């Protein structure tokens, strides 16, 4: 498939030139501004003024106005024409002679301005010398293997350089100092200033006519082997891949970014940007194809046509219309340098956006997204394709002219359901990606609302994340949408995000009450409770407390018990108010009080007493029911008992008053214990309940965290109770023995032995006695150890003290030992702590005596 880059327009009809004279042909053409010159094979130069006209349909036509023509009078063809507008001269090659004529009158300039013996010539369009009043031309001379450089002035020509070449040149082009020459066997680049040359590639100029065409600065286009159009720079390298022409190309022209080539049946147009064939124009009898300052002229031997490039935008739009996205973008980017920067940016972005939509239409989402991104697409253009996604408040209107031809998604997919789903999935991922980026700046509401609608519609799991986190969804627009898709839970979240907690809760309550259908969360009730427990608005908590507690007291009470610990003073619920309110809810109030007393450890008598009373009442209530389950009863009683034991804040007398007339003897005993009325408690335990284990436990827990003597006191009391002489029974005796034997360590053995009746056998109390002995031994040894340790510690201190106080001692032969009063005869001596030196042997002797005496004293003590 091709595009239309050029349009063919007839410029000079046959009638204006040679009419029906069969043998007269166009030989060469020059176009300079509005001046069109035509040289013929019968030595005429025709001059026309070219008028360009744009028709209403955008097409261009040319009209020509014939000017005076000139016969050079040589009966030879006019081979070449070249205008030098700055000099007002036309350079004419005719009969191997270059001559100058006036551009307007076509009058010959007098002699002195002729070059003879010229095969062909070329004008340097990029001369090194900056003189604007001369033109540099390069001439291939008739002289074998000779090239000449001339300067052409208004009325004279001047030779600058003559070079001889290794082969006969047949075509030449010139840029700066660089000549690009076609020799018979190859092309070369020749620097006429330095004389250095560079081979390009071999080419048989005799077999096929060479083409040497300047493309731009230091770059040439050459006819290569196999019908290639080769690009070569002055440095002798190729910077672009070749274009592929036919084998018999006779002319080439360049009109950026296109290369045009003429062969016997066609004009082919390739892009220099991607080297692809873009357009083929059928054209018979083509004779000349040349470009002149952006104009491309094509001629047969009789007529002249213009090849008018279509405007770039039109070409790009044509490419896009045939979905050739990459080519369109290459073409646009190739024009970067020829269009002002700001205009280019607008054009470029628009093309990228259009390309994005084309690929989007082909469901090539990844590529489309890339183009949308590069083209800075207003994301709403894309959203607006999807019906009803933009919020009703959106001010967006699609850009004009439209970026695509799609009315909406249904039109694009022609109703194909699968495709619609894919498109929606794409938009979801795209919006999700861009919503936090710059792309969404200025249209966050539109983006988020559209995303919410898509999530709701497709049942996407991210819906909840969207509504629960920071978003810009337009509430009024989203409400009906979420309702439509039964996303009530999400709707509640959205209300919550919009600070309408009351509405949110109302909706959720309706879901729980099954007035609305949405099973997003199976645990919605718990969610509401959780929500309320974190709700800082007390009014709301109170408003929905009744509903919550009526649903489930145990969970519902969390709205009071699970409140954040570090809640502000202002919003903190007053426990007294809550307790008062919870009177209606017998379960809830217990949970609440437990929360206050047990979890939060609030040391307030009223709460503790209240809780104890509630436990008690609960137990009595259960107990009075005929069909109570023993499990539950014992559970409740266990709770009561534990609480009575552990708490010490409740009003004991008050509870005792309530408990006295019930069956709760054990609890009664606990209460007495709290009152330190242990005898009463033990009486109940031992004589009423005969629960000796409980009695033992009583002693243990009552003396917990108390000193040993207190514990011993309790155990002694218990033992006394067992051995009450008024109430002796074998049962009690056994209990007493067991108590002694199992808790021997608590008892004061001497006290016990005094109490024990004489008729009890040793064997009976054996474990107790052993333990008592062991304990006694143990305490003796422990005190010995302690004594020894204290003694050694004392020694250490003494040693330290001596070290601090020590003074030098003088020892001489005159000094005597304090013990034996003999003098010292060697340096060894013992130094007592009072500073007295003695002989070592004397000290040893004394020590021995001392210990012996001690032993003696100890021995007498023991006996």
């Amino acid at each position, binding site marked *: 498939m091709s595009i239309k880059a050029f349009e063919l327009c007839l410029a000079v009809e046959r009638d204006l030139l040679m009419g029906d004279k069969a043998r007269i042909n166009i030989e060469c053409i020059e176009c300079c501004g509005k001046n069109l010159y035509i040289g013929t094979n019968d030595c005429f130069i025709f001059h026309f003024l070219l008028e360009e006209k744009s028709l209403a349909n955008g097409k261009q036509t040319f009209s020509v106005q014939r000017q005076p023509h000139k016969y050079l009078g040589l009966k030879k063809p006019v081979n070449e024409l070249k205008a030098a507008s700055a000099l007002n001269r036309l350079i004419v090659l005719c009969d191997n002679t270059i001559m100058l004529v006036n551009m307007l009158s076509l009058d010959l300039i007098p002699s002195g301005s002729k070059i003879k013996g010229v095969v062909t010539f070329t004008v340097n369009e990029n001369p090194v010398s900056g003189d604007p009043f001369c033109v540099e031309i390069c001439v291939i001379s008739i002289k074998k293997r000779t090239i000449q450089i001339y300067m052409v002035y208004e009325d004279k020509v001047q030779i600058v350089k003559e070079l001889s070449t290794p082969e006969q040149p047949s075509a030449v082009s010139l840029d700066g100092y660089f000549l690009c020459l076609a020799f018979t066997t*190859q092309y070369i680049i020749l620097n006429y200033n330095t004389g250095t040359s560079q*081979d*390009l*590639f*071999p*080419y048989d100029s005799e077999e096929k006519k060479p083409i040497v065409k300047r493309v731009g600065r230091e770059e040439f286009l050459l006819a*290569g*082997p*196999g019908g*290639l159009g*080769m690009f*070569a720079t002055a*440095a*002798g*390298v*190729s*910077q*672009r*891949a*070749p274009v*592929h022409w036919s084998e018999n190309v006779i002319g080439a022209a360049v009109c950026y970014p296109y290369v045009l080539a003429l062969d016997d049946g066609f004009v082919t147009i390739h892009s220099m*940007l991607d*080297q692809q064939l873009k357009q083929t124009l059928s054209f018979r009898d083509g004779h000349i194809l040349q470009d002149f300052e952006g104009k491309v002229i094509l001629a047969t031997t009789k007529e002249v046509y213009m090849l008018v490039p279509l405007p770039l935008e039109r070409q790009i739009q044509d490419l896009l219309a045939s979905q050739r996205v990459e080519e369109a973008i290459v073409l646009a980017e*190739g024009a970067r340098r020829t269009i002002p920067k700001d205009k280019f940016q607008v054009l470029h972005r628009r093309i990228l956006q259009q390309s994005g939509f084309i690929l989007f239409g082909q469901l090539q989402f990844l590529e489309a997204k890339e183009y949308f991104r590069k083209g800075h697409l207003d994301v709403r253009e894309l959203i607006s394709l999807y019906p009803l996604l933009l919020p009703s408040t959106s001010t967006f209107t699609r850009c004009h002219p439209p970026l695509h031809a799609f009315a909406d998604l249904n039109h694009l997919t022609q109703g194909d359901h699968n495709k619609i789903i894919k498109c929606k999935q794409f938009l979801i991922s795209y919006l999700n990606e861009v919503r936090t980026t710059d792309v969404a700046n200025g249209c966050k509401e539109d983006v988020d609302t559209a995303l919410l609608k898509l999530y709701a519609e497709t049942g996407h799991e991210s819906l909840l994340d969207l509504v629960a986190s920071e978003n810009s969804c337009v509430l009024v627009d989203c409400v009906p949408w979420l309702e439509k898709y039964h996303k009530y839970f999400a709707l509640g979240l959205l209300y919550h995000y919009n600070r309408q907690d009351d509405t949110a809760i109302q909706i959720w309550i309706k879901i729980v009450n099954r007035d609305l259908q949405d099973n997003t969360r199976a645990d919605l009730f718990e969610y509401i409770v959780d929500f309320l427990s974190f709700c800082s608005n007390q009014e709301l908590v109170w408003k929905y407390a009744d509903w919550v507690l009526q649903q489930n007291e145990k969970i519902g009470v969390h709205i009071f018990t699970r409140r954040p610990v570090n809640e502000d003073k202002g919003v903190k619920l007053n426990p007294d108010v809550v307790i008062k309110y919870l009177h209606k809810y017998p379960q809830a109030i217990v949970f609440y009080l437990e929360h206050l007393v047990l979890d939060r450890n609030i040391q307030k008598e009223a709460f503790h007493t209240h809780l104890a009373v509630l436990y008690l009442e609960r137990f009595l209530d259960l107990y009075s029911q005929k069909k109570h389950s023993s499990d539950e009863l014992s559970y409740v009683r266990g709770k009561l008992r534990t609480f009575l034991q552990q708490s010490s804040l409740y009003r004991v007398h008050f509870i005792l008053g309530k408990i006295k007339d019930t069956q709760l003897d054990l609890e009664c005993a606990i209460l007495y214990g709290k009152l330190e009325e242990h005898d009463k408690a033990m009486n109940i335990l031992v004589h009423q309940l005969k629960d000796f284990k409980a009695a033992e436990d009583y002693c243990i827990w009552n003396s917990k965290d108390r000193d040993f003597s207190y514990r011993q006191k309790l155990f002694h009391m218990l033992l006394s109770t067992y051995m009450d002489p008024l109430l002796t029974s074998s049962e009690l005796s056994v209990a007493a023995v067991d108590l002694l034997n199992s808790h021997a360590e608590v008892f004061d053995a001497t006290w016990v032995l005094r109490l024990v009746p004489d008729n009890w056998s040793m064997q009976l109390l054996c474990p107790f006695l052993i333990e008592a002995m062991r304990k006694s031994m143990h305490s003796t040894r422990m005190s010995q150890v302690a004594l020894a340790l204290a003694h050694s510690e004392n020694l250490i201190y003494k040693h330290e003290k001596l070290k601090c106080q020590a003074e030098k001692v003088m020892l001489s032969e005159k000094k005597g030992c304090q013990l034996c009063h003999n003098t010292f005869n060697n340096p060894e001596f013992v130094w007592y702590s009072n500073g007295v030196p003695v002989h070592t042997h004397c000290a040893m002797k004394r020590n021995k005596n001392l210990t012996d005496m001690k032993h003696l004293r100890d021995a007498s003590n023991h006996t």
Partner: protein
Amino acid sequence: MKKPDVKLVILGDVNVGKTSLLHRYTERRFKDTVSTVGGAFFLKQWGPYNISIWDTAGREQFHGLGSMYCRGAAAVVLTYDVTNWQSFAELEDRFLALTDTASADCIFAIVGNKADLTDECASVPHPEAERDACPCPSPVSTTKSHKQVVKEDAVALYKRILKYKMLEEKQCQAAEAMCFETSAKSGYNVDLLFETLFDMVVPGILRKRAEGLSQTVDLMECKGTGPKSSCCY
């Protein structure tokens, strides 16, 4: 259009798989290509550098263009077909001379393509490969061809190239590192080949830039630096 910093040229006889190698590297897949006309060009972004890769036409008709394509090349990939001895011989006979125009420090790589066709490179060892080890090229399996060029041949060629270029073997890359066997079809060694070469040409770019800097006088930047000539006052 981005200006390439350095040029890499793929040379080799017709139908050895030059275009397929480049295609495998750039498009990550193998497709049937038609015989390249003239040459094709691909620009690869390698880190901060642009590397132009020229895929040349192997056909005799376009042989004359080779010198121009190679002019100033920093690396030349001489490609042959491991199942075709002639394609290997052509490298020395016909293509080596084209590289005369390449840059003086040009890096050469010798690449035997179509490794997937030979029995040695089959992913699953063929049980009949053992039996077929005789030199006569009569493979039982029709899909496998006999390998006509072994890596030692390539290494020897590489050494001859260095001699031809009058380069000291010690100063150049080791022959073993510069001879590759690849398969554009399976992708075997293709990335390795190109990326090894890219890494090797980067120092050349830097060297060229450094030289370029010293030779260019930037009039905008030279203020204040160096002694000012007195004639300006």
